[in-house]
């Protein structure tokens, strides 16, 4: 995979307070990357520096080919438009400002608006738009000039479930031909369309890798055993010297540093006189990883 963007020691201080603290990462072409972290982790500040709106205190953002500003599309968390313009006028203006020739700009603007689902509203004034429509328009102005890199700040957080689904599907389509970097705190979305994860906490990049890699690192093999009745579950706990915690018909066994070991667990299970319905290994969801990373000191 070819590298598109290289970020080196990116740092931002506001009045002496470090908001983003020396982060390094690269983005490969046509991949999508989720920037996740708790509120105040520096996600928006990082994106702002990538767009060039905010000057880094230290460090650099380098696009491998071409000028950065000419090759990005940016969607802020709460995009604000000039209310006097229509959706088509705004999108067309966006395209022209990025150097698309006038005739082509109009055609592209129309096509893009249809793509984001605003085909019937192209000539309406933006002042009359709802939140969801504005978000779609925001995406259309970010992609109309076919940028190499798409930066999205919380693209779906403000939408209702239906709108979220639609926007996510849009982004999945775009994924084929564009590099996408988006921030989010909705982890299901990140799980759904991400090649790479960037975990920010207090301005530092604390986890970095593919979803699979990060998962491997945090995956502690926890097991759940299902019994037929609550009584049996409790009995198992007593018999096996409190190997786990009972909750209804289930016993949850947390394995920390190989304790209890697999042999121990199987040993207890084999000695148990009743039938066992299920023994399963649980993989950590992104949410659990998120909580662990967010709390890790």
């Amino acid at each position, binding site marked *: 995979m070819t590298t598109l963007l290289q970020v080196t020691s990116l740092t931002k201080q506001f009045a002496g307070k470090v908001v983003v603290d020396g982060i390094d990462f690269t983005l490969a072409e046509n991949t999508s990357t989720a920037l996740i972290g708790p509120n105040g982790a520096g996600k*928006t500040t990082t*994106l*702002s520096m990538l*767009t*060039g*709106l*905010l*000057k880094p205190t230290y460090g650099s953002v380098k696009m491998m080919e071409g*000028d950065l*500003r*000419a090759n*990005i599309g*940016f969607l*802020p*968390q*709460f*995009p*604000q*438009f*000039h209310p*006097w*313009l229509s959706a088509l*006028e705004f999108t067309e*203006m*966006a395209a*022209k*400002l*990025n*150097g698309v020739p006038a005739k082509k700009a109009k055609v592209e603007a129309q096509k893009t608006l249809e793509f984001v689902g605003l085909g019937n509203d192209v000539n309406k004034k933006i002042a009359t738009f709802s939140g969801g429509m504005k978000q779609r328009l*925001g995406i259309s*102005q970010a992609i109309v000039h076919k940028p190499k890199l798409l930066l999205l*700040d919380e693209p779906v957080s403000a939408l209702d479930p239906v709108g979220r689904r639609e926007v996510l599907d849009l982004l999945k389509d775009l994924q084929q031909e564009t590099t996408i970097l988006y921030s989010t705190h909705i982890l299901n979305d990140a799980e759904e369309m991400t090649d790479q994860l960037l975990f920010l906490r207090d301005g530092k990049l604390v986890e970095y890798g593919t979803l699979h890699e990060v998962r491997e690192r945090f995956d502690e093999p926890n097991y759940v055993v299902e019994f037929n009745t609550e009584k049996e579950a409790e009995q198992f706990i007593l018999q096996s010297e409190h190997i786990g915690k009972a909750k209804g018909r289930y016993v949850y066994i947390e394995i920390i540093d190989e304790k209890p070991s697999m042999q121990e667990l199987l040993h207890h299970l084999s000695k148990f006189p009743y039938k066992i319905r299920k023994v399963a290994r649980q993989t950590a969801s992104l949410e659990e990883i998120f909580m662990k990373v967010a709390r890790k000191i």
Partner: protein
Amino acid sequence: MRGFNVLLQKEFREAWRSWKFLWIPLVFALLGMSDPLTNYYMMDILNAVGNIPEGFEMLLPELMPVDLLQASIGQFQTIGLLVLMATFVGNISKERASGMATLLYVRPISFGAYFMSKFIVMSTVGFVSILAGFAASIYYTVVLYGTFEIGSLVASFFTYFSWLLFVLAVTLMMSATFKTIVATSCAFIVIFMGQMINAIVGTFWTVSPWKLPLYGVQLIRGTMEMSDFWWSLMMTIILTIVCISIGTFTMKKNASMTKI
């Protein structure tokens, strides 16, 4: 000047659709017609209002047409400028504060082009406004008092327009440099305090932009000391260009102030 045409079109659309090309000229037209009318009908107005003691004789001054134009310009100088400046002082700063600037600033635009597109639209609104104001004032003056000589009248109009360009450049520069509230204060202080200082020490300080509105009138009267006029005009043009340059610079420098 990348993107200049596109940005100019956007600014014109906004000014047009928010009726700025209609209501500001209307204000100026009303201001322009008020002086010739009220002065001409002063006696009738007083009689109609009543309460004039029996046998009271009032001597109203004989007014020349140019006196009425001067009075109208006096109106433009206070209420007119107030309206224009208050309308446009948020032109850049409000766009930043609301976040509307963000979607434009991330694109490869030239800040010089963006600043100039705003300045040109403001100037056009200003031009149409004082044109309406002058036309209204002159029309009623000609009907009620007497005629002007066309050449000096046109010269006077463009002298006032040069002053207006300076006012608008100061306003837009402040908007680029500060937040709206500070920009408003600073622009008003420069323009209106300048007028006050000019009123106090203007006799000794003959070369300044604040002199131009008066010099325009003196052109019609034919009492203008031409070297003072040319120096003031030149100084105004230079200061306007300086304001535009500073404004472009601070607009770019403050780009990160835009709400994201």
